């Protein structure tokens, strides 16, 4: 549409220039503000949902917790300890207040402060998810670019067929099956790596592989398709007409344009990485948030469930906000909504 608009006469230009500079000064500020507002809203929603957890439980949670040999007084004590005897609104605000100050209650069973449990269990989980994230990025983005460069314009059809087959198989295997399979191959059949535990780097290898192979395969495919897509664009021909080296063509011209959809899917993959970590920790018996969450749900340790759901949720929300920010960086059009 803009291609059809008449060329601007110099007289008209001074006006548009002012308008343009006002627009260029504001989009970032407006974008960041908008993102911050929606971030706060989503976080508030998350806190509300975790707050609602105990209150959604059918029946009286205090009675459930008191177990078989309960008396009225034990139920009342538990209810008081949970704060369930106060008005709902006051419970809600004191819960939010507590969350803001890092007070998340105590485990029903071990009486450990939930915040200290989160730190203690969070470190191995963060190690697992962080290593996997780095591995996914390091392999899939350069790998997909290389695959695109090798198969551009229909070159190397055999390589393309193998690449597609391998990545679609690995992209379809869910994390807990991958974990089982890896455990079988490396630990049971080959006796190479330990199956379970938290000890050292070796015990990290299989869990990291189990949660990262699927995202790697999915992203490899995606990066290749997107890079091929970009490579067939007219502006790449323009870039080649400038006789740029391959580094400039692939890193400056192709990568930023291919990255936009990759980042979008990357955000989704990260949340599946978190879910995968929860499951895989249980397969390999790692002491992380995932194992803590499952045992807390089974034991109805509500404060612990609340805390872990909150932490995992906040992680996902923040990662998504970062992805949005990166998207705006790589694609300036998304700022003004022209994408």
């Amino acid at each position, binding site marked *: 549409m803009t291609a059809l608009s008449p060329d601007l006469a*110099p007289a008209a230009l001074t006006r548009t220039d002012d308008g343009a500079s006002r627009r260029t000064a504001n989009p970032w500020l407006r974008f960041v503000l908008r993102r911050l507002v929606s971030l706060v809203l989503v976080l508030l929603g998350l806190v509300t949902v975790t707050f609602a957890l105990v209150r959604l439980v059918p029946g009286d949670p205090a009675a459930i917790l008191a177990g078989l040999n309960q008396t009225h007084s034990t139920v009342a004590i538990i209810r008081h300890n949970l704060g369930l005897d106060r008005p709902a609104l006051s419970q809600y605000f004191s819960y939010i207040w507590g969350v803001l100050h890092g007070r998340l209650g105590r485990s029903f069973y071990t009486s450990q402060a939930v915040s200290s449990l989160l730190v203690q269990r969070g470190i191995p989980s963060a190690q697992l998810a962080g290593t996997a994230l780095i591995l996914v990025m390091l392999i899939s983005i350069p790998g997909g670019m290389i695959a695109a460069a090798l198969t551009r*314009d229909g070159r190397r059809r055999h390589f393309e067929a193998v690449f597609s087959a391998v990545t679609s198989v690995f992209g379809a295997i869910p994390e807990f099956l991958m974990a089982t399979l890896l455990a079988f191959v490396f630990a049971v059949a080959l006796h190479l790596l330990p199956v379970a535990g938290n000890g050292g780097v070796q015990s990290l290898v299989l869990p990291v592989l189990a949660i990262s192979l699927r995202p790697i395969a999915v992203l490899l495919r995606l990066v290749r398709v997107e890079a091929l897509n970009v490579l067939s664009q*007219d*502006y790449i021909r323009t870039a*080649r007409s400038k*006789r740029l080296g391959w580094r400039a063509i692939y890193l400056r011209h192709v990568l930023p344009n291919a990255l936009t959809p990759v980042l979008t899917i990357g955000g989704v993959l990260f949340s599946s990485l978190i879910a995968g970590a929860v499951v895989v920790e249980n397969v390999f018996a790692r002491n992380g948030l995932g194992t803590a969450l499952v045992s807390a749900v089974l034991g109805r340790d509500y404060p612990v469930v609340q805390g872990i759901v909150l932490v995992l949720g906040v992680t996902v929300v923040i990662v998504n906000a970062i992805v949005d920010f990166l998207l705006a960086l790589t694609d300036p059009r998304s700022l003004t909504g022209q994408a």
Partner: protein
Amino acid sequence: MRRAFFRSPTAVIGLLLLLLVIVIAIIGPIIMGTKAAQLNPSAFDETPSFQHLLGTDSLGRDIFARLVAATRTTITVSVAAAAIGAVIGIPLGLCAVVLPRYPRIILLRFIDSLIAFPGLLIAIFVAAVLGPSATSAGLGVGIALSFSFARVSSTLALSIAGRDYMAAARILGIGWTRRIFRHVLPNAGETLVIATTVSISSSIVAISSLSFLGLGIQPPSYDWGSMLTLGVASFYTNPAGALGPAAAIAISALAFGLVGEALARAMNPLLWGELRPVMLASPIGFRSRFRRRSTAAHRQPGSQHLADRDAVLEVSDLVVEFPRPTGPVAVVDRVSFAVRRGERIGIVGESGSGKTMTALAISQLVPYPGTVRGQLELCGQEVAYIPHGELPAFLGRSIGIAFQDPASSLNPALRIQTQLTESAHANQHADRKQAQSIALQRLAEVRLPAPADQMRKHPHELSGGMRQRVMLAISLMNQPAVLLADEPTTALDVTVQAQIMELLAEINSLHGTAIILISHNLALVSQNCDRVLVMYAGRIVEDISVEKLVEGPRHPYTRGLLASLPDLRQPTDEELVQIEGSAPDLADLPPGCPFSPRCPLAIAQCQEEPPLVELSGGGRVACWVTMAATTAS
């Protein structure tokens, strides 16, 4: 559609697997139920044997029998979860159509932020509220799936609502219930069925992983996920106990996934089709090299080496071929011409005549798998003899190229500044400051207003005419001797077109830059060039100066082109002359002159190929009829 579905082998495999899973789900508990429940304390944790195909578990129960018997539970709960997801999600998504603007935006944002959450976490949350059970697992997975259902159906419904007949229905005052049930649902139905099929696949995986964690189906009931837990516990003694359920989960998830994907592919091949780069539409890659041709035998009869001291560009016997199943097809065929310093040459022809490919061959940008042969002399240097490492910079400094559509030819992610300066960095070894000042100078030359401000902008912030000016500035960065302009104004409107043409004339007179203007528009070329090359079927059929062109061209094809131009002096009741027939298929050219089938003057001799001969009055033409006329006179 049905045929498209069955033609794909993965669809057939998926369907067979799906049938197998469903049959086992129905009869499994009947045939294996009793065996699965049999305890055998004397034979626990046994490895696979004939009696126990997958061995026995810690209580001595046959794992294979339990696997078969568990199919029904697994599939039922998974399908139920997908159904819950559809029942919650689809109406939620359809709301987007009937809601007013702001509530709709809020709803869509809400769905988007929920989709970002890991589904498993949502399901675990539900299990925490209701206590672990098959019901809570089904409900949790259902709720988690409902958000993707809501997303799919809202996107779909909004696109349907945007169609003309929906706008008409709204204006006619048709109520929202009828709009949804009459118009949206029937159109969205197929896609939603596919979404449901695919979601059963994810549901199987999700339910199994919940059960695997102990949060799903509770003993004494069991499903594949809970069997996997037991199997992993006795992994070292009997790996088959874990691998069996794992395979069952993978295979049935795969079956639903394959069928869903194949359905989608059969219904909307465009959406799911693999991206095959259209080769000719995407000229990229610079593999092709000019090679000196060893034998004169391939030369076009009558072509001669055009020794011209003043030439900045000399092309001889240029051939561009693309492999096709039937053999190589020449899209540019033995093209020879020379361009003098400061000359303005137009290349004219229909689409597919080889004019753009000629330009790409000259600039060494012919896309893979095209090959280029012939000789190319640029600024007095034979290109084939330039060392490989020096070639890019040499080409970058001698040739500038302005491409057709400035909207797509500039990189949307980079600032104007980068797109200009990188060329100077690469070809002139300019440092940052130098490159920047060259860029500013070029932008001023192409009359871009306020160049310093525009440098910081991205292409989408400029108008079409301004972008084409930027494109020209890019092509002029290294002060090339030759500027190739490939349909530089086709994408622009008429006023801007005139401005750009003016600019080309200015550049030409300012720096003595030779200009090769490629266009399908003979009028435009005749107004802005000194000489015109007319191309047909990859060959030059006429080479004529503009003065001679106005007097009257020699080749029947050029005459046809000229006659088909609208002319204000022409009486309006006279019809425009058209060239009969259509452009030839390059893979199947007629013998002799390629234009002869459409030529009103064709004679018997046209079955032989006419050479491109130099005429005594200047210019060249490839036509037997013309040659007969000139020798006769």
